[in-house]
C-alpha cells in the first residue's frame, strides 16, 4: 500500500463516523479526532495528520474489507453456532435442521450487532450490519441450489449408478423390481421430443413477436408488452387446461406428446419474447440505418442485418426458455398420459416425460427403489437443464455485434491469410 493508503482509509472512516467513533490512529492525534461531524471536508484531515500537499485525486475506497470486519463476522458466526448448539442439544426441546439454522441466523445477527456496537458508532454499525445481512441472502440462495443438487445426487446415486438406468425403459419395472433393471430412457426421449416440438412452435412465433415490438411498435406496442409481461407468470396448469379444452376436446387431437408440447410452447412463448426483445433492442440503430441507406427493404434488413447481429443473444434467449420448458410437469399431466414403455411417436399414444415419471413414482408412494428412481430422474432432468444453461452461458454473454475472443482470433487469422 502506498503512503496515501492509510489516509484514504481514514477518509472513509471519518466521513462515515460521527463524534464518538475514534480509531487508534486518530486517538493518537487529538487535533484530528475531535471533529467528527460527517460533513467536515475530509481533505483537511489528511493535511492535519501528514504534511503531504492536498491530493485531490486520492480515490475514495468504498468497497474495502478490513481485518476487523472479517473477524467480527467470523466471531459472531462461530459464537452463534456454539450458542445454538447448546440451546438445541442441551437446553430447549427443539429439533430439526431448519429450526437449527433459523436460530443460528437469529443468534448470529444479535451477536454481530452486539460486537459491532462495541467497536463502531451507529452509522457504521447500520452500514456494516446491512452489508452482512444482505450478503447472507446470496449465501442462502447458493446454499439452497447446492443442497438440492447434492441431496438429489445422494438419493439418486443408487439408481444412476446402474447403467441400465440410462439405457433401458421401465417396461419391465414392477413393484418389486430391483434397481439393476429398468430405467428412464423412454422418459428422456419423450421429454426431449416434446421440448423440440415446443421450441419449433414457440421460437419462431416468439422472435416474430419480439421483432414486432422492436421493428414496428406503434400504438399496439405498449399493450402487447404488458400482456406478454402478464403471460410470463401464467400458471402452467392453465396453459394445460387451454390445450386440453381447445386441442383435445374441441379439435379432437389425441392425448399425446404433441398436445403437451403445444401447452409447453405457450409457456415458453413469453420468455422467448421478452428475452429476444431485450437482445434485439440493443442492436445498434446505425446498422439498421446503414442497411436502409443501401436500399435494403425492411425484411432484408431484419433477415440479413438484425437477426445475424443478435444471433448469440437470441440463442441464449431460446436456450433459457428451453430450460424452463423441459421441467414443466402440470401441462404434460393434463394433455398427455404416462407410459412405461418407449413411445417415440409424439403424435400418437401417451408419452412419458422425466417430470411426469418423477411425479408418478412419488405419488405411487412406493418402495425405496421408486424414490431412488425419482431422484435419479430428477438428476437427469437437472443435467439437461445444466447443459442447456451452460450452452446459454457459452453462446451468449456478449452484446450483439460484439465479438467473442474466439471470433476475433478467427477473423484475424482470415485477415492474415488473405
Amino acid at each position: 500500500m502506498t503512503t496515501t493508503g492509510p489516509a484514504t482509509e481514514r477518509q472513509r472512516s471519518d466521513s462515515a463516523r460521527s463524534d464518538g467513533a475514534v480509531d487508534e490512529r486518530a486517538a493518537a492525534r487529538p487535533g484530528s479526532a475531535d471533529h467528527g461531524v460527517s460533513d467536515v471536508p475530509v481533505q483537511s484531515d489528511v493535511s492535519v495528520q501528514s504534511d503531504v500537499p492536498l491530493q485531490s485525486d486520492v480515490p475514495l475506497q468504498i468497497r474495502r474489507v478490513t481485518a476487523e470486519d472479517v473477524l467480527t463476522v467470523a466471531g459472531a458466526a462461530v459464537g452463534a453456532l456454539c450458542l445454538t448448539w447448546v440451546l438445541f442439544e442441551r437446553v430447549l426441546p427443539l429439533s430439526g435442521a431448519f429450526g437449527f439454522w433459523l436460530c443460528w441466523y437469529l443468534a448470529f445477527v444479535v451477536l454481530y450487532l452486539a460486537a459491532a456496537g462495541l467497536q463502531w458508532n451507529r452509522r457504521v454499525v447500520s452500514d456494516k450490519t446491512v452489508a452482512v445481512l444482505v450478503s447472507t441472502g446470496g449465501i442462502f440462495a447458493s446454499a439452497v441450489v447446492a443442497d438440492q443438487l447434492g441431496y438429489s445426487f445422494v438419493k439418486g446415486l443408487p439408481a444412476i449408478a446402474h447403467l441400465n438406468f440410462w439405457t433401458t425403459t421401465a417396461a419391465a419395472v414392477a413393484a418389486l423390481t430391483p434397481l439393476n433393471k429398468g430405467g428412464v430412457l423412454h422418459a428422456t426421449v419423450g421429454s426431449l421430443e416434446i421440448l423440440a416440438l415446443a421450441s419449433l412452435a414457440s421460437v419462431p412465433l416468439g422472435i416474430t413477436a419480439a421483432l414486432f415490438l422492436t421493428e414496428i411498435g406503434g400504438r399496439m406496442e405498449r399493450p402487447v408488452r404488458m400482456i406478454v409481461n402478464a403471460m410470463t407468470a401464467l400458471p402452467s396448469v392453465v396453459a394445460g387446461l387451454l390445450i386440453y379444452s381447445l386441442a383435445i376436446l374441441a379439435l379432437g387431437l389425441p392425448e399425446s406428446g404433441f398436445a403437451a408440447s403445444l401447452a409447453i410452447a405457450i409457456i415458453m412463448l413469453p420468455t422467448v419474447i421478452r428475452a429476444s426483445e431485450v437482445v434485439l433492442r440493443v442492436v445498434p440503430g446505425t446498422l439498421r440505418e446503414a442497411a436502409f441507406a443501401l436500399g435494403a427493404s425492411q425484411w432484408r434488413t431484419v433477415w440479413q442485418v438484425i437477426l445475424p447481429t443478435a444471433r448469440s443473444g437470441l440463442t441464449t434467449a431460446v436456450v433459457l426458455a428451453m430450460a424452463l420448458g423441459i421441467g414443466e410437469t402440470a401441462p404434460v399431466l393434463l394433455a398427455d398420459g404416462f407410459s412405461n414403455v418407449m413411445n417415440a411417436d409424439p403424435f400418437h399414444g401417451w408419452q412419458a416425460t422425466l417430470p411426469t415419471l418423477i411425479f408418478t413414482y412419488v405419488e405411487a408412494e412406493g418402495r425405496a427403489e421408486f424414490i431412488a428412481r425419482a431422484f435419479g430422474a430428477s438428476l437427469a432432468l437437472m443435467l439437461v437443464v445444466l447443459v442447456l444453461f451452460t450452452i446459454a452461458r457459452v453462446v451468449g454473454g456478449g452484446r450483439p455485434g460484439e465479438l467473442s475472443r474466439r471470433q476475433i482470433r478467427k477473423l484475424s487469422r482470415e485477415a492474415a491469410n488473405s
Partner: protein
Amino acid sequence: MAIAVTSAAAVPDDDDTPRTIVTRVSRADALFRAILRIGGLSSFAFTGLILVFLMYRSLPAFGADGLTFFTKQSWNFVNNEFGIGGVLPLTIIIGAIASIFAIPVAIATALFISEYAPGPIRRVLIAVIDLMAAIPSIVYGLWGRYWFMPRAIGTMGWLSHNSRWFPPFRLAIQPSASAFVGSSAIAGLVVCLMVIPIITSLSREVFSQAPQGEREAAYALGSTRWGMIRAVVIPFGKGGVIGACMLGIGRALGETIAVLLIVNSIYTFNPHVLQEGSESIAALIAGDWSSASHIQLSALMASGLVLFALTLVVNSFAALVINRSRSGAATAE
C-alpha cells in the same frame, strides 16, 4: 425501404410548410410487416383463447353449482357439489406465506449482487440465481417433500406449542409428528424458494440501473454505502421492485406441482397454517385431473378460470406499476 419524397409543388414558395414525406412500402415489406403484426398480437389471441375456452368449459359447473361455486367448501363428485370456498383462501395463504419470506430475502440478495458483491462473486451469484429459476418445480417439490419437510417438522411443532397467542399457529388436532406434515406453511416455504430467484433477478436489474451520478452525489455528501442505497438505489428502484414482487406473487399463486407433492390435499378451509392439510387451485387441478368425470372436469376448468383471472389481475397490476415507475420506464426502453 422505398422512400418517395413528394415535394409539395402546389404550395406557394413563401409558405413555409414542411414537405410531406410518404413512405411507400413494397409488397414484400407489407407482407413482412403483416406477419410481424400477427406474431405480436398472438399473445392477445392466447390470452383471449384461454378466457373464452375456460369460460365455455366451466359453464356446466356454474350451471350445477351457480355462484355457490365460490363459497362452497366441498369437492363431492358423487352429488356433483363442487366449490372452491376452501381452496381459494388456501391458495392465497400459501402465496402470502411464500411472499412474506421471499420478498425480504430476494431484495437483500438483489442488493448484494448489484451493490456489494465484487466482480467474480457477482457473476457467480447471477448464474446461481438464474439456475435457481431454471430448476424445475418438480425438483423443488421432491426436495421439499423428502429433504425439507422432515427437517422443518420439529420447528413447526415448537412454533405451534409456544405461539398459541397467535391464532393461525394453533392446532385443531392433537399434536403429533404427522400433524405437521403437508401444511400450508411448509408448502409456502418451498414455494418461497421458487419465487426468490424471480424477484431477485428483476430487482437486481432495476437496482443496477440507479444513475451513477446520483450515487456519486450521495457519496460526495459523506454518505455510507447503506446511506447511499437508502437515499438513491431504493427510491430509484421502488416501482420496479414492487412490480417484481407482484410478478413473484403471481407465480406463487399459480405454482402447481411442488405444492401438489408437498400438501395433504383437502377441500375445506384450514386456517391453521402449521397443521397438515392444504391445497392450491393449481394443485387441485393437476391432482384431480386423471380421475375427473364430466361435471368435475368442468369444475376443474372453472377453478382454472378463477386462478387465471387472479394471476392476470396481479400480473397486469405488476406491469402497470413497472411501466409507471421511473426505473420501470428505464428498463422497458
